[in-house]
């Protein structure tokens, strides 16, 4: 089910502004890859280009290639809507649909595929997704309550359940724990470990310990200067990046020394 991602020579533009320059990175199936780097270095933009969410902003475009198991993500026959159904995303702030119950939130993606489902079938999907997201035990008695009534950490796991209910190939996470307390964070990190067996996961994080804890590979992004595009400085096994990085900028960033 999980697919690999192969990015080569990717430039991302907003209008005439080059936001991310020349990224080449292979991402293996069923692995966790963490993107780290200072704010504004383009890691979120790059993450969003992997399911074409950056196109929400007017004038956004890319040059280069993104291959998902060999299939060109930006090919002429690829509809961004289908891309996003294949590649799920979890955002920085939990964003369950406030007007929907927990149950309907989990099924939101399924309903878009406009399949008519039997009640038993949708019950199964809801339970399976919530169990995978580690939320089932906490909400099974109040599935009809609004999702916005949950705590922040629960809401974020609800969003993860919503993303995986459609069984995507790849799961993108944009700083999923930055709005959460340490306990909720650790629950979500455990969850990432479990989800790795089924999904290819890419996570953006500002928390270096988190990158070290959850990821197999780490990619370090940096800006060469103010107003300059963000670049991928180096990518490698997480242990290597954290213990023995090649680039001095990576070492400086990881050790908390900047500039």
């Amino acid at each position, binding site marked *: 089910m999980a697919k690999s991602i192969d990015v080569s020579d990717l430039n991302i533009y907003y209008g005439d502004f080059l936001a991310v320059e020349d990224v080449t990175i292979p991402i293996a199936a069923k692995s966790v890859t963490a993107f780290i780097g200072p704010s504004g270095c383009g890691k979120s933009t790059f993450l969003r280009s992997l399911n074409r969410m950056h196109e929400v902003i007017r004038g956004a475009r890319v040059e280069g290639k993104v291959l998902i198991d060999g299939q060109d993500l930006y090919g002429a026959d690829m509809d961004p809507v289908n891309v996003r159904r294949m590649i799920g995303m979890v955002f920085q702030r939990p*964003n*369950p*649909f406030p007007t929907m119950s927990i149950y309907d939130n989990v099924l939101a993606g399924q309903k878009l595929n406009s399949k008519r489902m039997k009640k038993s079938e949708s019950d199964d999907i809801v339970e399976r997704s919530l169990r995978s997201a580690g939320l089932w035990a906490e909400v099974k008695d109040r599935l009809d309550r*609004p999702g*916005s009534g949950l705590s922040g950490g629960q809401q974020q796991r609800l969003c993860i359940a919503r993303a995986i209910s459609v069984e995507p190939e790849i799961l993108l996470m944009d700083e999923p724990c930055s709005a959460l307390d340490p306990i909720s964070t650790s629950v979500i990190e455990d969850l990432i470990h479990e989800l790795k067996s089924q999904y290819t996961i890419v996570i953006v994080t500002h928390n270096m310990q988190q990158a070290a804890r959850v990821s197999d590979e780490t990619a370090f992004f940096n800006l060469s200067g103010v107003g300059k595009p963000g670049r991928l400085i180096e990518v490698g096994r997480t242990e290597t990046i954290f213990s023995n990085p090649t680039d001095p900028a990576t070492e400086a960033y990881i050790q908390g020394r900047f500039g």
Partner: protein
Amino acid sequence: MTSTLAPRRKRGTVVRAGDRIFSGLSTSAGILILLVLAGVAAFLTIEGVPGILANPDEVKSGQSFWPYVWPLVYGTLIAATVALIIATPVAVGVALFISHYSPRKLGQILGYLVDLLAAVPSVVYGLWGIQFLAPNMVPVYTWLEDNLGFVPFFAGPASATGRTIMTACIVLAVMILPIMTAICREIFLQTPRLHEEAALALGATRWEMARLAIFPYARSGIVSAAMLGLGRALGETLAVAMVLSVTAGTVTANLISSTNPSTIAANIALSFGEASGKTVNVLIASGLVLFVITFLVNFAARSVVDRRKEFSGAN
């Protein structure tokens, strides 16, 4: 010392003059609106009750109050309802186009044009309705009668002048469109980006994003917009009075014939000039009925909005 002078004031709080003036101003503004409302209600009741109680031979229509006012209530409700049914989808559609579909420049121009519609005086809408819309609607009504005559609304015989309640409804719909569009547009623009992105990231198309994220968030706003529109449609006087060809006392589901019920507001405007004695009280009483209807409609709308409060985007 402070505690003896002002025992209820919390320790350590200082009341500043500016705060006191501002709170006084806003409180009196709030009380003023209540007074105005109470004044209008009192006037309508005091002047209206004699009209409600008047003998049939004391008034011009020769009818007692309830049989007299019922066709007017019916006409008012049906005109406002049909106008709302026509205007709501259009307003929501236009607002959605302006806020989420059109290029920003075009959206601004369109928004401006819609606002301009609100600035057209209702007498001009009346002229447009009677001179342009009514004659041009005649073929449509004939067609409706021939093809959809089995529906009570289009039973016919179709009016030859086009001055039907349906024409009045269309004019009303155009009149309430600007305010409804403007409110819907503002609400749609406030949809949190987070929710929109949540929908898009699930693989929603633009329309599905509207259904998943924008409409649920904007639900109460759309209801408010509809209520404001309905309020205006219920009370609109001149355009209806000009367009509609009235047969007194009609109560019919037929929207396209030449016998039409009048509305309360139009009836007051048309009859007031030559009314005297108890007839004036009857007209004022019909105004009281309109006042009550508007109140009830607003309460109903509020309860609709409140019922699913915890599911609203507010929390």
